[in-house]
Structures are given as structure tokens and as C-alpha cells.
């Protein structure tokens, strides 16, 4: 196969920069593997390693600093047949740390080449995530305070199944790159090199010294047995192909005449765990079965299992504009927390409004009619109070009736949940 080097854009690195060697090694790898430019997507980061995409006649994606792995994953998922190769410096490694961890955990078949030269070459030699504390860099004394990151240890701890630490000068680099690209999963090659433009001006580092440093570390040469597992994309396609298609939600049949015209507002005041939101939905579905428009706006705390749970409902034969509650016809008071959260509402209620309240709750003063329900006497549990109150409303033919409620329950629930709700309904329809 011929070289994929873009002869109209020759590399522009400083003389002696190890990036140039890697450029040539990568080209040689492509040739050995016999892959064409259009079968490769080269995703480059920022900095001197970010120039890589311009040197090759391949698909190229040059994005933002540290984010190369994010685009690469999007490309690989959409075009699984492409060889996706990311080039990134030690700068990108630091700023994009979360993406590195995630790529290792995902195991999507891409190759990350870290061009590690221990500093930010392009911006003037500041310290990076891999700069040793004893180095002299463009960040004053700050690098003395931080411990350098071993990308390979981090990657293998995060689950990468192919991790290699290499010198940009080692003889078998081309073979190593081929192994990494051929590996069916996420592969990472951390290539140590020199930056004569910045780093080696004040720090003694040579191909030989890199070799010695690497020899002093426990070698990482590729496959990490403990992390071997199925490739993400393959597994994704397998799992997703087994899923049942999601149909558009089924329609609500309009079978009844509405019990009122114009706008009616209902508010449910309860607490977490009382199925307030579901009860609100049931009222709306019941209204829709009579051809009414309906809106439901809910309020609950972020900690979903504690605190008030409130549902604001509007039912109307006209299109519903404002979805807030202004003059509720019915206030269903189920729990003190909900009442307290909306206590300001009660003073505004007139005699035309009704409060359906669980016996024992403290209601703020209002002019509304109060209808108490003795839930204890009915033998109901707190999680059924809301559904019981809806059933009592239906029994009174207020807002909804029994037929509408039954249809709503049958639309919303299946199996034992449906049975349980019908039991509560039947028990409460006649208890008003």
C-alpha cells in the first residue's frame, strides 16, 4: 500500500521533535496494515499533536482541547467499519481526563495515541499532567507541587484492555501501533518523546534517557488480560437489536360527555409516596375520555421519596392557556406537607370550591365547603389515599364520573396494579 502522508502538507514540527517520528511510524503502520485513507478517521486534539490530521490523506476531525475522544466515540458508533485513531498530547490527557476514563470503561474499538512529551510545547512549555516535579518548566515552581500522572496505570485501572507504554524511538513501535489498532476494543499507547522546541532546552532528556526511564517502570506492553471483555459497539448493537419497538403511545378513546363546560381546576396536595402524580394523571385521562383538554403540572422535591407532592390540574372544554391554578373547584388535601406548601391558596377559596380532605389534617381557614374522608375507617393505606379521593370525586360526579374513571384506570394500568386500583375505586365510589 502506498503512503498516506499528505505530500502537499509536510510536517512542520521543530527539528528533532519526536512527533515527526510518530507521524512516519503511523504511516508505516497504515501501509503494513494495507488500509486506505477513507477507511481511517484521524481525530486530533489540540497542541502540536493536534496538527496530525493535516499530515495524512484520511478522514480528519480536529476539534477542541481534550475532547477528541468524545467525537471519536460518536464517529465509531455511527461508522463501526472505520479505524478511528485519536492523537493527543499530555495536555489533552489532563484536560480530557473524564473522557479518558470513560473511553477505558466503555471499550469502544478505537485507538488513543498519547504523544507524551511532558509539557505544553505549543504554548511555551508549561507543566502538564505528566511533567516530573524536578523538571524546569514554564510554570515557575508549580510543577514541584504536583505528582505526575501515569496514563497507563490510570487506563488499566479504568478498564482499558490494551495499554502500552512506549518510547517514540523504540524499534518495534510500528508493530506495537499495528497491534493497538487491530485490537478489538479501546487501545491506548502512551508514547514518550522529546520536545526540543521547549522542554529539552532546560531539561536533559534524550531517546536514550527515555529508554532508561521506561526500563525502570513495570512494563505495559499491550493486552491487559484482566480487562478483556466484549467490545462496546458490538455489544450495543446486540443488546439494542433485541429490544421491542416502542410504539407511539396509544390513543385515549373519547366515549363520554363531559360533566361541565369551560375551565375547572383541581389541585392535589399530598406527600411523596402517595402516588399523587399518578392520581392527577388519572383525573386528566378521565377528562380526556370525555373530550376535554387537560394539563398536569407537578411539584415535588428533588429528593423524590420525601416532602410534599403536588399536582395542579386543569380540565377544560376550551383550549387551555395558563396552566397555573387560580380558582380551584376542588382541592384534594391528602397530606399536611402538601397543604403547608400551598397554604396561601386557602384564603382565596370561595364557597363554590370544595375541599376533599383526609380526616385529621389541619386546614388553613377558607370559605370553601369541606368534605372529610375517614381513610382509617375505610382501612386504606397512605399510598391509596389519592386514588381513593379520586374515586370519591367520581362517586359524587364531580369533575369525573365512575365510567370515566374506570376507562382511565384500564388505560393506565395492567394486571395486578389495575386490579388493585379497581378495588379501591369500587370501595370508594359509594362512600361519599
Amino acid at each position: 500500500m502506498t503512503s498516506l502522508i499528505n505530500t502537499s502538507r509536510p510536517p512542520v514540527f521543530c527539528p528533532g521533535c519526536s512527533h515527526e517520528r510518530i507521524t512516519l511510524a503511523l504511516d508505516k503502520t497504515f501501509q503494513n496494515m494495507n488500509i486506505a485513507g477513507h477507511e481511517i478517521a484521524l481525530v486530533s486534539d489540540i497542541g502540536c499533536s493536534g496538527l496530525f490530521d493535516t499530515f495524512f490523506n484520511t478522514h480528519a476531525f480536529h476539534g477542541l482541547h481534550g475532547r477528541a475522544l468524545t467525537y471519536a466515540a460518536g464517529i465509531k458508533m455511527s461508522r463501526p467499519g472505520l479505524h478511528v485513531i485519536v492523537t493527543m498530547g499530555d495536555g489533552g490527557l489532563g484536560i480530557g481526563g473524564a473522557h479518558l476514563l470513560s473511553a477505558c470503561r466503555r471499550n469502544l474499538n478505537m485507538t488513543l495515541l498519547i504523544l507524551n512529551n511532558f509539557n505544553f510545547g505549543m504554548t511555551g512549555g508549561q507543566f502538564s499532567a505528566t511533567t516530573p516535579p524536578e523538571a524546569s518548566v514554564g510554570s515557575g515552581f508549580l510543577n514541584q507541587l504536583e505528582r505526575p500522572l501515569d496514563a497507563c496505570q490510570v487506563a488499566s485501572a479504568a478498564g482499558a484492555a490494551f495499554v502500552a507504554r512506549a518510547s517514540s524511538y523504540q524499534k518495534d513501535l510500528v508493530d506495537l501501533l499495528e497491534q493497538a489498532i487491530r485490537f478489538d476494543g479501546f487501545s491506548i499507547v502512551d508514547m514518550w518523546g522529546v520536545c526540543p522546541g521547549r522542554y529539552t532546552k532546560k531539561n536533559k532528556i534524550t531517546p536514550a534517557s527515555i529508554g532508561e526511564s521506561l526500563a525502570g517502570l513495570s512494563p505495559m506492553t499491550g493486552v491487559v488480560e484482566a480487562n478483556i471483555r466484549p467490545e462496546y459497539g458490538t455489544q450495543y448493537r446486540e443488546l439494542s437489536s433485541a429490544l421491542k419497538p416502542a410504539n407511539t403511545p396509544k390513543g385515549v378513546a373519547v366515549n363520554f360527555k363531559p360533566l361541565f363546560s369551560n375551565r375547572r381546576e383541581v389541585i392535589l396536595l399530598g406527600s411523596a409516596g402517595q402516588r399523587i402524580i399518578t392520581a392527577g394523571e388519572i383525573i386528566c385521562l378521565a377528562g380526556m375520555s370525555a373530550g376535554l383538554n387537560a394539563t398536569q403540572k407537578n411539584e415535588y422535591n428533588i429528593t423524590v421519596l420525601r416532602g410534599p407532592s403536588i399536582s395542579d390540574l386543569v380540565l377544560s372544554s376550551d383550549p387551555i392557556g395558563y396552566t397555573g391554578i387560580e380558582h380551584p373547584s376542588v382541592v384534594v388535601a391528602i397530606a399536611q406537607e402538601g397543604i403547608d406548601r400551598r397554604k396561601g391558596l386557602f384564603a382565596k377559596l370561595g364557597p363554590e370550591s370544595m375541599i376533599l380532605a383526609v380526616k385529621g389534617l389541619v386546614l388553613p381557614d377558607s370559605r370553601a365547603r369541606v368534605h372529610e374522608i375517614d381513610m382509617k375507617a375505610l382501612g386504606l393505606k397512605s399510598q391509596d389515599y389519592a386514588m381513593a379521593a379520586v374515586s370519591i370525586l367520581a362517586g359524587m360526579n364531580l369533575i369525573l364520573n365512575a365510567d370515566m374513571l374506570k376507562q382511565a384506570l384500564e388505560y393506565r394500568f395492567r394486571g395486578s396494579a389495575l386490579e388493585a386500583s379497581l378495588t379501591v375505586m369500587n370501595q370508594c365510589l359509594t362512600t361519599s
Partner: protein
Amino acid sequence: MHFVFMEGNEAIAWGAKASGCRFFAGYPITPATTIYQTMINILPPDGGIVMQGEDEIASIGLCMGAAMTGLKTMTATSGPGISLYSEQISFAIGSEIPIVIIDVQRLGPSTGSATRGADGDIQFLRWGNSGGLPVVVLAPEDVRDCYTLTQKAFNLAERFRCPVFVASNKEIGMTRENLDLDSLEPVEILERTISNTRDGFLPFKAASDSGVPDFLPIGDTFPVRQTSSTHGPDGYITTDPVVISQMQERLRDKLESTIDSYSYYDAVIEPDADTLIITYGVSARAARASQRQLKQKGKNVSLLILKTLWPIPDQIIRQFGKPVSRVVTVEMNLGQYVHEIRRILPEKEVIFLGHMDGRMISPQQIQEAVTHDQLD
């Protein structure tokens, strides 16, 4: 008739699917999470791809990679996530990457209140990118709009190859409403224009009539380039000021010179009205109610509901502003879009009504704003 009970977020997801969205990536954030949840339920069984990013930067990055392989992509978040998207948004603008971005706005600043609504990001969406080039922002007022405006957002993203925002709000996204799916406005689905030549293909050379480059995907038989650096038509870095300025002006003009073709709005005009209410988003619903209530009281006001917020539909604002002497601008923030209205209608008395405390603006407040100032 197909009568469903759906929240705005679900409608956005279904609208996206109907638009041919094949890739969604998101990160959980209230009040936008149910878009992600709906997408994971409906897209993968249909062969589409849904991913959860490690953060918002990754979510949008995943989409951008996928977009350049030719897929229609969408991501969804709220204000804090838009902040993290910002640099990627600049990239998508400059490198002409089509993407639909949903912002289900919540009360800010910052973490603010996850479950309270606001329209506090309206200027941020427009200006929260480096370089200041235009973007498209559409604003739904209800669940129906969530569905159809999402479809329009996809069409605009494909047509102009740019990020298109849908500026929703917790009060729409998480409010359920009945919707007749059979009564939705039919939206013809557009596809990106694919280059019919490969020989000499230049990824950023605009087709002369549209100002937008024809497309070849990453993965085509012809290698294509994508870059965040300042580039010429060939997609390589350039320092030539003439080439650079042509590129920047084209990115501006492709959107601003065509705004009349996608200025979506709804207007309820009373011929004898002296006051025009201009609003958008969920506040439009209260405005409709207050307009009806005022009419019952014998006071006619006109109403303009903007659904395209950016680029500014100047033409529409001028046209409907012309016959009145007063304009009441209603928005769920402390005054953002009103600055544009004042700029476009300098000769009119422009009154602002808004607050940002988690409560919606009520019809009553709008009525008071419309009538009160006339007593002054």
C-alpha cells in the same frame, strides 16, 4: 384522532424520531432528563443510537462526531449543561456541524432550582459562543410546539448546517398535556445536501445559491476533513484575511439573510388595538388567556407570539408593531428579549413585564401590565 397525554419533553423526543434523528447523547439533568429517557426507549429498538456522556461536554461531542458521519443528532440539557456545551457550540457554528440542542430552561443562575422554570437563557443561547456568530433559537409554547418545532429545528440544522436550539422551559417540558397526534401540522422532512462530486470536493466551499457547503460524510469513499481551526474552503488552517472574512461573513449571512423563510410566529390581531403584547414560550399561554379576558372586558389588544427568537425576526416585529403605539413585552426573566424589541421599535412605548422566581407569569399580571400603564 389520536389523543395522547404527554409532557413537552416526550413530544420533543417523538418529534425528533419523526424527523429522522438517529443519534442522541445526553447527560441526566432536571428538567431535561425525560427527553433522554424517552429517546432511550424509542430510538435503539429502531436501530438508532443513544449514549450517555460522561458529562455534557462529552454528550454534545458524541453528537458532533456522529453528525459528521451524516446522522441527524440531538442532545438535551438545561442551563448548567448549556454552559458546558458552550465551547462545542462555537465549534459547531464555525465548522458547520448540524445539531439540535434542546434547552429545557430552569431557574438560574447556576445550579439555581432544578424543578422551577424560567426563560433565563434567551440571550445566553444567542451569545454563549466565542466569535458571536448567529445561531437559530426556536421557542415552543406548548406540547404541540415541542413536537413540530423540534421537526423544524432538525430541518433548519440540516439546511444550514448549524446548531439549532429549542428553548423549552420546565413549565412546558415537564407539564403534561393532551395532544391529538393526528392533528399535528405536517412538516416535510429535509435532508442535508450531499455533494454530487467527489473529485475536487472542498468540505467548506459553499454552494453558490445557498451559502451552505454541500456535504460528504466521514466514512465516505472520499476522505473528508473537519476542523475547529480557522479554515478555508479546503478545511485546512488559513491565515489569509480575505479567505477568513469571507468564511465568517458567510456563516453570518447564511442565517441572517434567510430569516424571513423561517420566522415562525403566531399572531392574534385586533384591528383597533393600540397595544401589542409580544411574548414567547410558556408565557404565551398566559398572554392568550389575558387577551381573551381583556376582550371580554371590552379592551382589545393584539398578541404576537414569537417562535423563532434568533436570528431576530425583525420583519415580523416591525410589521405587527407598526399599527400600535404601545408594546408590552412579557418574558419569564428580568428583561432579555425586550432589549431587541426596544431596538427594533424605537418609536414605540415598550413596557416590560417579567419576573424570575419560579412562578409563571399569570394572565392577571399581564392584564394589569396592559391596563395599568395607560392610567399613568
